[in-house]
C-alpha cells in the first residue's frame, strides 16, 4: 500500500529530522518575536507539535509503538498547559487591559 513503508521507499529519516527542527525553530522565533501573549502560547504549541512529528517519525522507522504512546501523553500535557495558560492570560487581561507581554516588567531590576 502507499501508506506503508514510507522509509523503505526513499524518504530518509533525516528529512523528518530537519523538518521537525525547522518547525521547532519557527516556534522559538515566534516566542521571541511576538509580543502578543496568545501568539506566544500558540508558538509553544508549534514547538510541541514539532517534537510530536519527530517522535512519530521514529516510531514508524523502528516499528515500535512506544513513541506514539509518548506522543499521546505529550498531547495530554499540551492540552492541560494550554488551558492553564489561557486562564492566566484572561486574568492578566482583566487586571491590565492588555496582553502585551512587553508591558509586564514588574520584575525589573
Amino acid at each position: 500500500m502507499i501508506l506503508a513503508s514510507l522509509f523503505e521507499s526513499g524518504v530518509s529519516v533525516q528529512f523528518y529530522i530537519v523538518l521537525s527542527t525547522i518547525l521547532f525553530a519557527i516556534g522559538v522565533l515566534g516566542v521571541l518575536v511576538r509580543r502578543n501573549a496568545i501568539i506566544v502560547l500558540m508558538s509553544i504549541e508549534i514547538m510541541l507539535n514539532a517534537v510530536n512529528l519527530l517522535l512519530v517519525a521514529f516510531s514508524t522507522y523502528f516499528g515500535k509503538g512506544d513513541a506514539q504512546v509518548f506522543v499521546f501523553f505529550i498531547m495530554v500535557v499540551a492540552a492541560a498547559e494550554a488551558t492553564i495558560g489561557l486562564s492566566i492570560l484572561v486574568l492578566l487581561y482583566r487586571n491590565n487591559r492588555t496582553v502585551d507581554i512587553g508591558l509586564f516588567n514588574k520584575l525589573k531590576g
Partner: protein
Amino acid sequence: MSIQQLVPLILLFPLLGGIINGIIGKNLPKTVSGSIATLASFLAFGTAILAFFKLEEPVTIHLFSVISLDDLSLHARFLADNLSLWMVLIITGIGSLIHLFSMGYMKHDEGYYKFFTYLNLFIFAMLILVLGSNYFMLFFGWEGVGICSYFLIGFHYSDAEKGMLNGLAARKAFIMNRIGDLGLLIGLFLLLAQFGTLEYGEIANKVLVDKMSVSSWMIFGITICLFIGATGKSAQIPLFTWLPDAMAGPTPVSALIHAATMVTAGIFLVVRSNYLFELAPATQDIMLYVGLATSLVAAFIAMRQNDIKKVLAYSTVSQLGLLFVALGMGAYTAAMFHLTTHAFFKALLFLGSGSVIHALSDEQDIRLMGGLRKKIPLTHLTFLIGTLAISGFPLLSGFYSKDEILGHAFHENIGLYVILMISVIMTALYMFRLYFVVFHGKFRGSHEVEHHIHEAPASMSIPLVVLAVLSVIGGLLNLPGIFLKGGTHWMSHHLEHNTTGLSLVGGEHGDSNTTLILMVVAVIVSLSALAICYVIYGKKESIPVPDAQLSGWQKLSARKLYLDEIYNFLFVRPVEWLSEKGYKFFEITFLNGLVLGLAKGIGFSGELVKKWQTGRVNWYILWMVSGIIGLVLYYLVKI
C-alpha cells in the same frame, strides 16, 4: 635542703607574693597586703643566705625545656654560682629593706596593693635575670624588669597635675630601654649563630676550653651588641636621659630600680660574659670611653640640679659610668665590689631623700628645704653617712671600692686616672652641695610645711639604719692588702672562685706603695671637697639661685646640657613626621582607597549586571535560547 631545692624557692617567694597581692590584694587591709610582700622578699633573702653558705661548686637547676630542636634548644634553667648568688643577695636584701620602707612611705596611697604586686614581680624578674643559666633567661628577666619598671615609674599615672608627665616618663624609660634591648637581641642572635647555643657554660667551654676560633669581627659584633643592651639598661651615653625622668616614680621605686637593681643588670651582663669581652679589646676600649664620658657629663649636670632626686639620679648615672670604666679595664671584681657598695649607699641616699620628702609633705625642690638637721635627726645622720660614703670619705665603703677602680686606672693610664679623678671630685662636690643645702642653714619653705615636719616612722627608719651600717662596714668585703696581712680582697677571691672566666682575668693588685699614695690622694680630694662645700654652702649659707638668674656653665648644667632638646630634635621629631606622612599616605590614600575602591567596584559591577534584569520575558527567553545554542555548540565542537 640542697641548692637544687633552695634556688627555685628563692624565685617562688616573690612570685607568690606578687600573685597573691595582685589577685586578692584589693580586698586586704593595707598592712596585711604590704606585709605579705615584705615577708615574701625577706623569705627570699633568707633562702638566698642559706644557699650562699651551702654553695661549693656551680650548680645548674633545670626546670623545663622551652624549645628543643636539633639546632636550637632553649631551656628554663638556673645557674647558681658565686656571682649570681651574690647578686641575689644584693637584690633580695636591699629589696626587702625597700619593701619595709614602702610600707611606711606609701601608706596614704590608693594603689597600695598594686605597688607591692609590682615590686614583688620586679624582684622576681630581676632574680630570673641573674639566676638564669643562659642568655635566654637573662633576656626574659631583662624584659621583665623593663615592664615592671614601666609600671612602677608611671605608677601615679592618674595623678591630677603630674599624671601625664609620669606616664610620659615611664614611656620614655621603656622606649630607651627598648632601643638597648634591640642591641641585646641582635647580640643574642649573633651568639646563636656563632656558638649554636645560649648557655653560659657551653659558650664558656667553647671559648676557653676548646679555644674555638672566632673571627674578630664576629666577637666585636657580639660584644658591641651586648654592650648596647647594657647601655640601655644601665643608662650610659646616649641612652641615659630616661633615668632622671624616671624620678617621676615614687621614691622607693627609684631606690630599688635605679640605685640597686635594674641599672646593675647591664654590669652583670658584662661580668657574666667576661670571657667574650676579653676577646674583644676594641669593645673594652669603647666601654671605657663611653663610661668615662657618661661619668663626666652626668657629674657636670648634677652640679646645678635643684631637685633632690634628680641630683641622686645623675649621681647614679655617673657612678654607672665609673663602673663601665672599670669593666672596660677588665677589672670585673672591682666593678662588682663598687656595684655592691654603690647599692648600699645609693639606696640609703634615695631612701633618705624619700624620708625628707615624706617629712616635708612631698616637697622635692632643695631651694625650699634647709635646716633640717635638727628637725629630722635620724634621717640627717643616715643621709650624712651616705654622702660621705659616695664621696669616698676615708674608711667608709665607697672609699675602698672607688680606690680600687682608681688604682686600676692608674696602672692602666695616668691620663685616665686624672680624668677619673675629676669625675670623683665633681661627685664629692655636688653631693656635699646637696647635703649642706638640704640639712644646714635656715628652713626656706612655707610655715605650713614647717609645722608638719616629722621624723620617719619605724618602718622607714629601720631600713635607713641598716643601710647606713652597711655603707660604713661594706668596705670590709674587699679590703686592699695594706690593711690586713691575710684575708684581703675577700670578695674578689670569692667571686673568682667559681665564676667562669673571672679567675683568668684576676686583676693585679698594685704594690703597697702605689696603693698607699693613691689612697692619700683620694683622702685629700674628698676632704678638700668637703671643706669647699662647707665654706660655700654651710658657712656662707648660699642657696641655689632661681633658674632665671643662671648663666654660663651653671646654666648648661642646670639645663641638663640641653640633651633632651637635642634628642627631641634629632630623633623624636623625624619619627613623628614620618609617622604622620605614613598615616596620610598608607592609611588614607592606600588602604582607604583600596577598601573603598573595592566596595565601589563591586557596586559598579552590580550596576552593570542590573541592566540584564529587564523584567521582559522575551529577553529572558532569548538568553535562554542563546544558552542552549552555546551548550549544544560546545558539545558539538568538543566531540
